[in-house]
């Protein structure tokens, strides 16, 4: 019976990790529903970006207040994982504070002391975050897309953080042996008196409960990620690695169109020649994107990485002037639709059964798409290198090249370019008239 807690611990741990792995697999499968593009250029530049943007949080500090608070929570999160390592070892081997037996007392005390201070800082940061979202009501958290689940999601994670930090401190405060060491209990020494007068057994009981809840809480948190915008904790790393390196103004070249144009421009090409196998295979079934499967996997990774922070939307000129477009909503819609498609595949034994819906129209409207000025403010603002503009552009391509559904003014403009080589109805022969007008 002495091994019961250890066995129980291992079962809980395996269940927690097992479920997480299942969901990660699903995530990877969903992302791979996107078109395959190869991103293997500029490896060192990409690594630098990942290190700077995801690990170093360089883009977070553009907004100093949230940047600073976020950094605290982030550092707290990373460092406290060292403590989790101790918990896991203790849990499996039935030891108690294994760290103390491998590290000198002073080093161990220093480590735990640091964690305790961080835990308090995290509590403060979380409290301010909560105020910003629920009391001060910052504009960027009030958009139409930020009601219901996205709003609750943001709060739930704050509550989980509070509970985890409090459990950690309680666990230390009720550990008599640890308090007697009087090293590293920087914060918990002030909590210990709260438990004074309790019997040793009760005290030990509380310590055990806090310990168990702490690890179960962390496993729950891990598994909550998949259903939450907090997936960015993990995906920010690959996402910043695969983020756009080209100048922001450069929109990708559509190769299929290039081949067609070459054929049309080349007088020696035989338009009736049978297409070569290679070119044939390269022809996609449609231009642009109307659903998530038409987007590429980087765009889908983007959607899963979005933290719904709304920095993109608050910089967006269309959004600032009251138009329906919100780049954050573009990302959230893409993720929602992708999740829906994923569930459809799960329910239909691995194949997607058309459900009469698609990203375009059912989630993102034409009005939103046409309001974009392609200014790249959203791309610049995103702290995790997401490119909402690329999705907007792919959907515009679909609207224009597959459906001829451009606003009529744009059709006029395009007609002018085709006929006169200018977006206005002027004659190309008059292009130099300015030089001799006074």
């Amino acid at each position, binding site marked *: 019976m002495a091994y019961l807690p250890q066995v129980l611990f291992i079962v809980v741990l395996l269940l927690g990790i097992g479920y997480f792995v299942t969901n990660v697999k699903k995530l990877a499968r969903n992302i791979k529903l996107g078109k395959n593009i190869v991103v293997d250029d500029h490896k060192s530049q990409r690594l630098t970006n990942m290190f700077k943007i995801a690990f170093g949080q360089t883009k977070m500090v553009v907004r100093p207040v949230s940047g600073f608070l976020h950094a605290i929570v982030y550092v707290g999160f990373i460092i406290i994982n060292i403590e989790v390592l101790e918990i896991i070892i203790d849990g499996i081997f039935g030891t108690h504070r294994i760290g103390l037996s491998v590290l000198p007392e002073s080093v161990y005390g220093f480590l735990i002391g640091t964690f305790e201070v961080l835990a308090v800082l995290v509590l403060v940061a979380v409290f301010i975050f909560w105020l910003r979202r629920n009391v001060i009501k910052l504009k960027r958290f009030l958009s139409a897309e930020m009601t219901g689940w996205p709003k609750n999601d943001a709060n739930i994670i704050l509550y989980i953080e509070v509970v985890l930090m409090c459990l950690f401190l309680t666990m230390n405060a009720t550990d008599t042996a640890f308090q007697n060491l009087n090293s590293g209990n920087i914060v918990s020494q002030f909590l210990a008196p709260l438990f004074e007068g309790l019997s040793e057994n009760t005290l030990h009981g509380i310590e055990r409960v806090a310990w168990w809840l702490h690890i179960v809480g962390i496993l729950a948190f891990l598994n909550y990620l998949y259903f939450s915008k907090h997936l960015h904790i993990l995906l920010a790393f690959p996402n910043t690695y695969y983020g756009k390196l080209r100048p922001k103004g450069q929109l990708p070249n559509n190769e299929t169109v290039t081949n067609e144009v070459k054929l049309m421009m080349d007088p020696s090409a035989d338009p009736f020649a049978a297409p070569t196998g290679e070119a044939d295979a390269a022809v996609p079934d449609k231009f642009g994107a109307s659903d998530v499967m038409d987007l590429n996997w980087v765009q889908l990774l983007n959607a899963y990485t979005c933290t719904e922070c709304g920095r993109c939307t608050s910089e967006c000129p269309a959004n600032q002037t009251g138009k329906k477009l919100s780049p954050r909503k573009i990302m959230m819609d893409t993720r929602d639709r992708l999740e829906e498609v994923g569930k459809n595949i799960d329910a239909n034994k691995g194949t997607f059964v058309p459900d009469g819906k698609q990203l375009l129209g059912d989630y993102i409207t034409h009005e939103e798409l046409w309001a974009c000025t392609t200014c790249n403010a959203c791309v610049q603002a995103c702290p995790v290198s997401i490119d909402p503009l690329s999705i907007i552009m792919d959907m515009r391509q679909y609207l224009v090249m597959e459906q001829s559904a451009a606003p009529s003014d744009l059709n006029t403009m395009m007609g002018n370019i085709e006929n006169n080589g200018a*977006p206005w109805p002027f004659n190309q022969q008059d292009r*130099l008239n300015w030089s001799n007008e006074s």
Partner: protein
Amino acid sequence: MNTTIQVPTMASLFAEGKQPEVLFWVGCAGSFDDRAKKITKAFVKILNKAQVSFAVLGTEESCTGDPAKRAGNEFLFQMQAATNIEVLNGYEVKKIVTTCPHCFNTLKNEYPNLGGSYEVMHHTQFLKALLDEGRITMEGGQFKGKRITFHDPCYLGRANDVYEAPRDLIRKLDAELVEMKSCKSRGLCCGAGGAQMFKEAEKGDKEVNIERTEQAIEVQPDIIAAGCPFCNTMMTDGVKGKEKESTIAVMDIAELIANADDF
């Protein structure tokens, strides 16, 4: 502008067996829009004065295809690109300067994939280079002490990270450069990009150019400087909408320099 300007074409130089230092890509706005034509002429005036050997394509120039591509018509864009590249490569063009950030971005970033690789400069970069090389000199004259704010064109700034060249030129005019609350990488769009220039805006609370003009008015400038013919139009309309046209002028950097007293 009463001095006559010299505008050689590629075709005429080619016939004489000459190759200019740089091709001036005028762009559709610069060729046809009445306001933008003034910018074109101001820039040519500077080129003439600095004795830069340049040429334009004239009637052989066609839209780069930027608005078509941004509207989603990749096909039309590539047709335009293919035609233009054929002309440019035919004249063995190496270096291009343009007053339009949209042409600049497209020629610089999107033509190389389609077989057209050139060294492309925005006119503010080109002017800055002329200044650094001592080929032009200028003192502020009438702009001395004037409050000038610079509106970053999205396709010059954020899209291509050119922020300093235009600012250096403004400072060189002895003017006081004042920054709007959204500037440089956080600059606010004028509302014209992405083919918006050619269509009605979607429904909202206000137009983007009005929002941007309000930001500019906040810093109480004498002049709003721009580096893009489309921004120029949008800001001019904004200033008119706010009935400030008697106190605030909207001018392109090229116009500022061409009009500096002792240029």
